């Protein structure tokens, strides 16, 4: 019990870092995903290719390799210097962005083409069609898959401890060795992740219910 009382404040600090990184990375990741999905579906072949190469590159390599490439690889270049938190945020954002883009693309394609035809026949241009007709319907449909990916990304942030980011996992490692009570510290660590992810799913299903497709 003592271990836990001593370790807990540090873990909470780590949790703050984790949530901070997650929040920023997921928003940027989502925007990346949206842009890449639109590239993927654009009438311009070159944009399709850029998007496809990006997605394949991210999907075809381990997260940790992406992290090392950005933190160690890019940082070895003279004109780039990223601190570990920034490198971590960038990696999680880009990684999530690739997966989000596939989800968003599938969501857009799942909308009946009659919707676009109706919108275009009313004089909406393709941007207005995307914005008012297709994306709002696609997002409602995609929400469960998006939540899923967000949870995966949240878990991925624990790997940032490898490059020394003082996130929840990193604090856990420090406390585990400081207290000599690895069992309880890691148990608590797991419970904290579990609770956060549980709350995240609750939030998602609340949003889902609120915007249920009629």
């Amino acid at each position: 019990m003592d271990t836990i009382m001593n370790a807990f404040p540090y873990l909470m600090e780590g949790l703050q870092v984790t949530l901070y990184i997650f929040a920023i990375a997921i928003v940027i990741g989502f925007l990346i995903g949206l842009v890449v999905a639109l590239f993927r579906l654009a009438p311009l072949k070159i944009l399709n290719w850029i998007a496809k190469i990006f997605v394949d590159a991210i999907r075809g390599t381990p997260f940790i390799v992406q992290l090392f490439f950005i933190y160690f690889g890019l940082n070895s270049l003279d004109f780039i210097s990223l601190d570990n938190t920034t490198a971590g945020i960038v990696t999680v954002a880009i990684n999530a962005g690739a997966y989000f883009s596939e989800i968003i693309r599938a969501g857009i394609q799942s909308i009946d083409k009659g919707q676009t035809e109706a919108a275009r026949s009313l004089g909406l241009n393709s941007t207005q069609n995307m914005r008012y007709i297709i994306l709002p319907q696609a997002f409602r449909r995609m929400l469960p898959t998006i939540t899923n990916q967000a949870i995966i990304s949240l878990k991925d942030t624990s790997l940032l401890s490898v490059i020394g980011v003082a996130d929840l996992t990193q604090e856990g490692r420090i406390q585990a060795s400081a207290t000599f009570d690895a069992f309880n510290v890691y148990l608590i660590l797991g419970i904290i992740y579990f609770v956060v992810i549980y709350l995240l799913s609750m939030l998602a299903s609340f949003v889902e219910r609120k915007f249920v497709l009629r």
Partner: protein
Amino acid sequence: MTMIRVENLKKSFGNLEVIKDMSTVVEEKEVICVIGPSGSGKSTFLRCLNRLEEITGGHVYIEGVDITDPKIDINKIRQDVGMVFQQFNLFPHKSVLENVILAPMKVKKSDRKASEAKAYELLDKVGLREKAKAYPGELSGGQKQRVAIARALAMDPKIMLFDEPTSALDPEMVGDVLDVMKQLAREGMTMVVVTHEMGFAAEMGDRVLFIDGGYIVEENVPKELFGNPQHERTKAFLSKVL
């Protein structure tokens, strides 16, 4: 005034030549009904009139503007050409009222108040004012189609295109939708209607186009086309549907 002029229209999907050569003219306030066997290209013909399908060859003029010209602003043209689909294609995430006011507000930049006033007027006209706050999922097929008509009318189109507007409806719903269309025709709307409702074509059509094999096989006033068809294929088709 000529509202639509179709000159030597051609349309292929890859190797499939659906429209080989079609020409016709639609004058202001005319109601043109298009009939023909399934797969003969009726929908494709209609969809070329507002360029929902890219046109392979020939010309289509809407109020004198050649819409096959890539330089024209097709969105501008489409504001004048309403379209009603077999499957309604209402926007399911928007209420009936929002469905109707969307295009006037976003495309024509009308303010909300004026758009809503106009929308209520149109919903009155199709008998669905009390459904303004409902969502498409809560409506019957016939109600959905009447909303779709109101939605198209909200843009004040000069031409209305209908693609089998009653084909997806339960029989008891068909009458309500046809009534709305008849009223529209009587008010002088220029209409092109692809339909299997021969009764409607006979009653409301100024002319009927029979399409088959990529051509307009026969074009005449309904009395003549139905009563005295000139071509074998028209006769064969009519003997099956009448």
